[in-house]
């Protein structure tokens, strides 16, 4: 009995044969897209529908949502961001049954409802890197539906600045006998550059409308508050300067935007240019423009792009990774890797933090997922190269002076003690436990685990958790920056004063910060218009961010 070793190829050939009846050519008529998918797909297939943080294969998602559920059903969807209404519709119509994903964004509430009613099976919620990793192990797609900017006659793909995760998906699918279908915005005679070679792509369809991209990383400086300015001053003085942080990633939010906008002013005044914030794993945040223009930033590798930043990025090739055509080349998988292994610091915000320093963005009624923050917001245990910042953090964390030296990543949680409507950000117990209980999840969805967190920064000060030696000390340090929340008011004044004496807790005045200087006047740009000015007119913000 000899075993057949090419089942995958045979199945692929069978799919392509069925598809040929509908679409004889590699270029598919948009009107036949649904028929093509019905021909290609088999019940129970694992399908990757490209839904990145920004770029969405929205036309293919719509086409898939229209298939006949009698023919195509019980699909296993794998995608990183479940953001479109069509994604949810697939489950409501029975086209898909199971999902493995990473982040759900705008569909978080509907997703929780569907999961609660049993209409959707959630395999697992991943971080981005985990999910891409599983594409190459046990979640390899049979069919991948991806999005690109343009394609030529042969089917070479040009992704434009939003390459994002297309290479990871196509690599996993094409080299394991899967079928790759791409939607493109236009057909071109010559591509500016080839991001995916034609040989890895089976079908191309020109979408009637360009694929949807949201400007998710644009923060209007006009909305940065004085409290955020104060916290940014503390981060720059108490962490970036202190550790000499030169390689880093910023989460998205007004808190971190404030830091970016304080580099050319406050950090410059402290003489920190050239010493901090040189290398970034970061999307092209418009709020980074002033820091780039004033010479802080030496390099930026990006997960994806940002609407309006195209011309600016193209004009700054010494800073950004660009193709021969001049436009940005982003790559989410590589950038996540860079953020994990090659950055000394991650700083981000969160909705809730408990007394162990665990943080979560989950609430009872939403399944928001993780995205990439945990990849960045975790100590890289596999890291072996040293840097001053990494070594210093490692020294602080080591209680036994005789132990083998090793470094630590700085993982900073930056948040105000109260959110809007007086919701306390510090809690005894994360809402994530309730969500896990209600949906019978195996783990409460924790964004960043407390033992990975090195510092917590609030308007009250900085808690350095690396220096805490017991869980009791840690809890008091966290209470010490938790302000007037119930958690904060539960602190022991004596214990907190002791922590302050030891430099574990540092108030703004301990850092030499005059709170009265914490005004918006310190921001290098106070409006989107200012950002445009800094960019010399190269930044072209989306209309909704303009007031001119």
């Amino acid at each position, binding site marked *: 009995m000899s075993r057949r070793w090419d089942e995958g190829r045979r199945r692929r050939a069978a799919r392509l044969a069925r598809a040929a009846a509908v679409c004889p050519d590699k270029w598919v008529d948009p009107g036949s897209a649904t028929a093509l998918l019905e021909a290609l797909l088999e019940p129970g297939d694992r399908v990757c529908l490209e839904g990145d943080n920004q770029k969405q294969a929205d036309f293919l998602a719509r086409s898939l949502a229209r298939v006949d559920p009698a023919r195509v059903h019980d699909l296993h969807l794998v995608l990183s961001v479940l953001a479109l209404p069509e994604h949810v519709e697939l489950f409501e119509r029975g086209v898909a049954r199971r999902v493995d994903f990473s982040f759900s964004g705008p569909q978080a509430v509907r997703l929780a409802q569907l999961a609660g009613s049993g209409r959707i099976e959630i395999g697992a919620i991943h971080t981005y890197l985990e999910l891409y990793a599983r594409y190459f192990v046990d979640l390899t797609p049979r069919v991948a539906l991806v999005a690109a900017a343009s394609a030529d006659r042969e089917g070479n793909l040009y992704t434009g600045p939003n390459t994002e995760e297309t290479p990871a998906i196509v690599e996993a699918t094409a080299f394991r006998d899967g079928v790759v279908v791409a939607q493109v915005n236009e057909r071109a005679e010559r591509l500016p550059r080839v991001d995916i070679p034609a040989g890895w792509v089976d079908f191309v369809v020109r979408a009637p409308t360009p694929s949807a991209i949201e400007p998710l990383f644009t923060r209007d400086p*006009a909305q940065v508050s004085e409290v955020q300015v104060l916290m940014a001053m503390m981060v720059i003085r108490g962490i970036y300067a202190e550790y000499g942080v030169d390689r880093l990633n910023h989460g998205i939010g007004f808190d971190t935007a404030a830091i970016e906008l304080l580099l050319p002013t406050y950090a410059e005044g402290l003489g920190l240019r050239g010493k901090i914030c040189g290398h970034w794993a970061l999307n092209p945040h418009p709020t980074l423009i002033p820091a780039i223009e004033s010479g802080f930033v030496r390099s930026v590798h990006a997960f994806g792009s940002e609407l309006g930043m195209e011309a600016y990025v193209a004009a700054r090739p010494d800073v950004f990774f660009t193709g021969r055509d001049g436009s940005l080349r982003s790559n989410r998988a590589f950038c996540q890797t860079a953020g994990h292994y090659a950055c000394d610091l991650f700083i981000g915000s969160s909705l809730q933090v408990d007394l162990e320093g665990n943080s979560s963005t989950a609430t009872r009624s939403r399944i928001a997922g993780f995205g990439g923050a945990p990849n960045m917001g975790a100590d890289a245990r596999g890291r072996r190269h040293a840097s001053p910042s990494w070594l210093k953090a490692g020294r602080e964390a080591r209680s036994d002076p005789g132990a083998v030296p090793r470094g630590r990543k700085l993982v900073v949680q930056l948040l105000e003690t109260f959110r809007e409507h007086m919701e306390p950000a510090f809690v005894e117990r994360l809402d994530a436990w309730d969500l896990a209980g209600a949906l019978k999840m195996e783990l409460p969805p924790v964004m960043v685990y407390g033992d990975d967190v090195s510092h917590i920064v609030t308007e009250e000060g900085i808690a350095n958790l690396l220096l805490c030696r017991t869980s009791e000390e840690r809890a008091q340090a966290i209470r010490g920056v938790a302000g007037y929340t119930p958690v904060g008011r539960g602190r022991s004044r004596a214990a907190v004063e002791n922590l302050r004496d030891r430099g574990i807790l540092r108030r703004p005045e301990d850092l030499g910060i005059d709170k009265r200087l914490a005004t918006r006047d310190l*921001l*290098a*740009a106070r409006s989107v218009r200012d950002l*445009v000015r800094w960019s010399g007119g190269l930044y072209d913000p989306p209309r909704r961010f*303009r007031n001119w």
Partner: protein
Amino acid sequence: MTGPARSFREATARRRLEGVLDPGSFREILGPAHRLTSPHLAALDLPVSFDDGAVVGSGLLGGRPVLAAAQEGGFMGGGVGEVHGAKLAGLLGLAERQPWAGVLLLLDSGGVRLQEANAGLLAVSEVMRAVLSARAASVPVVALVGGGWGCFGGMGIVARCCDAIAMSEEGRLGVTGPDVLETTKGVEELDASDRAAVWRTYGGKHRYLLGEADRLIEDDLSAFREAAMELLSARRDLGLEELEREHRHLGRRLEEFGGCADARDVWRAAGVEDPDRLPGLEPADFRAAVRAARRGDR
């Protein structure tokens, strides 16, 4: 580079007055310690403000004695309620009583404060009559429009009742604001979230080009101060001949631009080359670019 040193738009009403008038010269009238808060907001269990969102007083501008009022856009969107409006009208009344060099109105308002609807509408009407009355008494009244709320509803009409208007490009002026327009007429009429379209329709640049705003300046307190000084000297006669001239001007505007569906069409029809670049220009470049096309001094 950094942003403007002292943004008018970002400043509170009090800071705007301090920044526009000679340093240290502002003397508030009926200040916050009087606690003249709105009983109507209190009746609705809403927050009140000690000055009801209107700061009024006297000061010096380039050494000349002036009266000045500033609306606080942050409080109830600068909405005009009973007390708020009475303060503005009272200040304009004071203008007629002594030889003031003029009155500055730093307007930042969505119009009538809906929570005091009827009293607000009457208050706006009283402010309007008080502006015209002060002007009839030969006291120039100058409107400065550059706050975050712009100048809408009845206050848009009030602004245009003044002798002159200085606007920043961020400033907006109109009667029916973008949100009301979208809500009542649908998103096809105007998408209020399309800020480029909103500013084309109401913004300082368009108003300057049509000749409705007399100055188009940077969002900077000093720029507003300088404009206010110049405009105080540019009093317009409130007489029949002047109105007949204005009438011809407004009539020509309808003939010339009545068929335009978008401000860009107006700019093109006015003879601006490449109108699409206007929104991106800095105020000085913009003024130069539209020098010939601007529909002159009204």
